C-alpha cells in the first residue's frame, strides 16, 4: 500500500514535470514565433516607410523644377499667364501637404495623391501650349528642362511602383494567418498603396 502510494506520487510528479516542461516549451515556441513575426513586420514596415520617402523625394524634385520651367516659358509666352498661374498654384498647394508614412491614413494619402495629380494636369496643359511656340521648342534650355521633367515623371512612376510593391508585401504579411493575430495585438495596420492616376486608365488619343 505504502509502496504503491509512493509509486503513484512519483509518477504523478513525473507527469507534472513532463506537463510543465511541455507547457514551457509551448511558451518558448510561441514567444520565438511571435518575435519572429514581429521582427518581420517591423522590417517590412521600415521598407514601406523608406520607399515612401523615395516617392516624396521624387515629387519634391518635380516641385523644384517647376519655377525654372515657368520662368523659361514666361520668356516666350508671357500672355499664357493663366496656365502658368495654374501650375504655380497647384505646386504651392501640393508642397504644403507632407505625410508622415508611419501613421498616414488612407484619406491623407488620397489627398496627397490628388494634390500631386493636379500638378501633373497643370503641367500637362502647360507643355501642351508650348507646342504653339516654335521658338520655345527650339530653345535648348527648354528642351533640357523638359527632359528633366520627363525624367522626373518617370522616376515618380518608378518609385510609386516600388512603393506599391513594398506595401503589397507588407499587407500580405499582415493579413496572413497567424500573423494577423500578432499584427492586431501590436497594432500593425494595413497600408494604402497608390491608386492608378486619374485618367491613366484612358488610352491616349491619336490624331492624324
Amino acid at each position: 500500500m505504502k509502496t504503491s502510494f509512493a509509486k503513484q506520487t512519483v509518477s504523478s510528479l513525473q507527469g507534472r514535470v513532463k506537463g510543465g516542461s511541455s507547457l514551457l516549451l509551448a511558451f518558448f515556441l510561441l514567444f520565438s514565433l511571435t518575435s519572429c513575426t514581429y521582427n518581420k513586420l517591423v522590417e517590412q514596415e521600415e521598407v514601406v516607410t523608406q520607399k515612401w520617402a523615395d516617392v516624396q523625394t521624387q515629387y519634391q524634385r518635380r516641385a523644384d523644377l517647376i519655377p525654372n520651367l515657368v520662368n523659361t516659358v514666361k520668356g516666350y509666352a508671357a500672355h499664357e499667364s493663366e496656365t502658368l498661374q495654374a501650375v504655380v498654384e497647384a505646386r504651392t498647394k501640393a508642397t504644403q501637404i507632407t505625410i508622415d508614412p508611419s501613421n498616414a491614413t488612407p484619406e491623407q494619402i488620397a489627398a496627397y495623391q490628388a494634390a500631386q495629380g493636379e500638378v501633373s494636369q497643370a503641367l500637362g496643359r502647360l507643355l501642351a501650349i508650348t507646342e504653339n511656340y516654335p521658338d520655345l521648342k527650339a530653345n535648348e534650355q527648354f528642351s533640357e528642362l523638359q527632359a528633366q521633367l520627363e525624367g522626373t515623371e518617370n522616376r515618380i512612376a518608378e518609385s510609386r511602383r516600388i512603393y506599391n510593391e513594398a506595401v503589397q508585401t507588407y499587407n500580405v504579411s499582415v493579413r496572413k494567418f497567424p500573423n494577423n493575430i500578432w499584427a492586431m495585438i501590436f497594432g500593425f495596420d494595413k497600408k494604402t498603396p497608390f491608386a492608378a492616376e486619374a485618367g491613366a486608365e484612358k488610352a491616349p488619343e491619336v490624331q492624324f
Partner: protein
Amino acid sequence: MSNLLTHLIQQLQQDRHTSLQRAVRHTSLRRAVLFTLLLGVAHICALPTLLAATYTVDNLPIPYLQDKTQYVSNPDNILSQTAVDSLNLWLGQMEDEHGVQTVLAVVERIQGGETYDFCMALARKYGIGSKQQNSGLVILLSTGDRAYTILTGRGLEGTLPDAICKRIENRQMLPALREGDWDEAMLNTVRAVKAYIDGDDSLVGSSDFDDDDDIGALIGFCVAMFLGLALIGLAIWYDNRKKAYCPSCHQHTMKKISSRVTKNKRLGLRTHHDTYRCTHCFFIKELHWDEDIRSGSGGAAAGGALGGSFFGSGGGHSFGGSFGGGSFGGGGASGRF
C-alpha cells in the same frame, strides 16, 4: 485589301444562297477554294511582320551574355560591322575603366513602340550594371518607331543627368538620325557619353571590385578543375579497391559475379545487391548500396557535367559576360525624330 475581303465575303454569302439549290459536293469544293484564297490573303498580311521582327524584351538577343566584349545588339544589321566594332571597343573601355556596363541596341521595331518602357523592362530583366555602383546604361534606337532612349542607372544619374542625356541626343544623335545615318548617330552618341564618363573619377572600373583578372580566373579555374577531377578519380579508385577486398584472404581479388536492383518508390531509393566472389579463395561477399533516384546517380553525372562545362568554355577565346544586378530609377532622356 479590304475591298478584296468584302468581295470574298459577298461571294461567300452568295455561295450560301445558291448552295441550297446546288449539290453539296459543289459547295464544299467552292468553300475549299475560298478558304485557300483567304489563307493566301492572311499570308500576305503577315509577310511584313515576318520580314522585320518586332522585338520584345524577351526575344531581343543580348550578345554580351555569350561574349563579354560584345555590348551591341544589332539583330537587324542596321549598323555596319565597322561601327559595331568601334562601339564595342569604346563600351569595353568604359566598363574596364569606370565599371559602366552598357547595352546598346539598334532594332527596326519594338513591341509597343515606347523606347523608355522597353529600356526600363530590359534593365529590370537583366539588372544591367554593377550592384555596388548601379552604373548601368541602356541606349536604344528603334529606327522603325523613329524613337530613341538613353537610360541611366541610379549610380549614373550624377554623371549623366537627364539634361545632359538630352543635350547629347539633341546635338550628337538627332542631326545624324534625320539624315538616316544610323552608324554616325550611334558613334557620336557613345563618343559623347564616354567623354562624360571619362570625366568622372568617382566611377571606378570593374577590375577594382574583384582583383583577379581574366587570366588569373582562368588559371584558378583550371587548377580547381584538375584538383576536382583528381579527387573524383581517387574516390572511384578507392571505392573499387574496397569492393575488391576479400575479408577471408585479405587480398584485393574479389570479382562481381551477379547484381540485382530493387526499387523503393516511396523513399525514392534504388538498392543494389551485388555479389562478389574471391578469385583466390572463392569466398563470397554481398554488398548492398542505396542510390537516390530523385537526384540521379551522383559521381558519374557530376563528373560528366564538370568535364562538359570545362571543355565547353575552353573552346572559345572569350567568356560570356554577366550583369551585376544594378538598379534603375528612371533617369535618362528619350525622344523622337
